[in-house]
């Protein structure tokens, strides 16, 4: 069996186990009346239709109209997802550009790194959602459309991993490579574009994968205080409010949100496959490559 087929099979296996655990737990709770078998201890999560709809009900809900006589729920959610993705994409591009720029600045100037790096790290401890309502007020004053505000929130989360990994990648060439460039009397710009940036590319892609997810989170979360009527964030909030009537719709919208995240990361992975030759791709777990992977296969298999 090819490694890919084996991995797909294992993945489907885990998925089946997870579905079985969900349904089994639900079945056990229904049978015992919500306690651990043979005890009087309550189960941590209730197992009624409200808390845990059947997995198949969630899938069926996607294919039914969202409201009486309206479009299919899947279609409604996909439209919302597209809307959210627009902000996320802009935030992703913006954030990646800022992150890359910071990486270049830091590798050029030790003073800039010492002055700004602590603040870059600290910026990620600021609960951005808390600032979003304030950004919305600003946007109102400046007559900026709200989805741009959402894109800014999204960029705020996306820039960080890109800045860190760009810096790491720009610093990755050996000291001898830098000395070689020095012996050619290369200018700092030539060193940057002919040595450091090409060396940093493999480091950039793992960061872009994280940034893709972060930008989706930023967009969904940013939509909440921005009171965007059209995005996934609002859809999730609405279905959460209507949870008691139709819990499977909330689960369905969360499923779609997850697929949007995976899809976006998938696009980045595809770009990496096209742009970075296999010998230069940074080792991904799962596909343990190279001599290390081989040795481990012998040890662990």
């Amino acid at each position, binding site marked *: 069996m090819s490694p890919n087929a084996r991995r797909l099979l294992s993945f489907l296996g885990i998925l089946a186990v997870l579905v079985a655990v969900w349904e089994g737990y639900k079945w056990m709770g229904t049978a015992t009346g919500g306690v651990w078998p043979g005890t009087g201890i309550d189960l941590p999560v209730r197992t009624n239709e409200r808390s845990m709809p059947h997995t198949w009900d969630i899938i069926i809900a996607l294919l039914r109209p969202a409201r009486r006589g309206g479009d299919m729920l899947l279609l409604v959610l996909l439209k919302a997802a597209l809307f959210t993705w627009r902000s996320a994409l802009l935030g992703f591009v913006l954030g990646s550009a800022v992150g890359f720029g910071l990486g270049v600045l830091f590798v050029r100037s030790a003073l800039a790194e010492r002055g700004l790096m602590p603040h870059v790290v600290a910026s990620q401890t600021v609960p951005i959602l808390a600032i979003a309502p304030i950004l919305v007020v600003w946007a109102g004053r400046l007559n900026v459309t709200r989805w741009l505000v959402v894109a800014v929130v999204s960029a705020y989360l996306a820039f960080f991993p890109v800045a860190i990994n760009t810096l790491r990648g720009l610093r990755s060439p050996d000291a*001898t490579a830098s000395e070689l*460039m*020095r012996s050619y009397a290369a200018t700092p710009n030539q060193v940057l574009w002919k040595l450091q940036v090409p060396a940093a590319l493999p480091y950039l892609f793992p960061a872009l994968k994280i940034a893709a997810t972060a930008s989706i989170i930023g967009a969904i979360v940013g939509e909440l205080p921005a009171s965007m009527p059209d995005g996934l964030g609002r859809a999730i909030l609405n279905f959460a409010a209507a949870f008691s009537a139709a819990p499977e719709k909330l689960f369905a919208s969360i499923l779609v949100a997850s697929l949007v995240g995976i899809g976006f990361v998938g696009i980045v992975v595809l770009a990496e496959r096209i742009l970075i030759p296999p*010998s230069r791709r940074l080792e991904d777990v799962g596909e343990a490559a190279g001599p290390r992977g081989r040795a481990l296969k012998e040890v662990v298999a």
Partner: protein
Amino acid sequence: MSALSLRGVEKVFNPGSDQEVRAVHGVDLSVERGEFISVIGPSGCGKSTLLRLIGDLTPPSSGTVLVNGKTPAKARLDRDYGMVFQSATLLEWRRVQANVELPLEIMGMDAAERSRQAAAMLELVQLDRFANHYPWQLSGGMQQRVAIARALVFKPSILLMDEPFGALDEMTRERMQSELLRIRAETGTTVVFVTHSIPEAVFLSTRVVIMSPRPGTITEVVDIDLPEPRSDETREDQHFFELLTGVREGLRAVEDS
């Protein structure tokens, strides 16, 4: 004017601190154009530091270094140096041809001329068939030949080599030595070559410089009067063995002192 002249060169790392190291001490040396000088000594004797002082990778603490009558910094800006390190240091995202073109690119040569000169250089190191390969597709010896081609492609007046064959196996190493002599015969470049192998130093050089450690200083300079051109027969010559013994005794004197 000599190709290289060192007068009272000193290098002290971390001066004044408790980690002070006197790496190079009172070195005087004069190298004529077209010479092949090997620097040999036990590890930690400052031979690599000496090479880095010549190549303007680190400044001397005192004394003067002149390359073609210029300061090392000026010589570097004039692109007088070709450098080869123990690791080939090829850029992995560039094919062999593009790696050899790199210095020409930085010097602003136009694409057609660049490609012509790099191709000629690859022919010289007999790797023209591998121009479109990536570095990882080449053996260690081939990678080092690419590094030599890259170092010579812009016709530097002096070639600085820091244990370039140190990571190769003995057979490849001897082949590379003959190869290097052939290339030098065609280009006439002055070479300063750091090594810790006695046969390598003797086989390649016109003079062998022996250094002692702590502080690193020149204890002896051995003239190598083997006939040119040298070949595999040279390695079995009686005089070759006598010279080996001479250098070995020079090194032993250093280690005993």
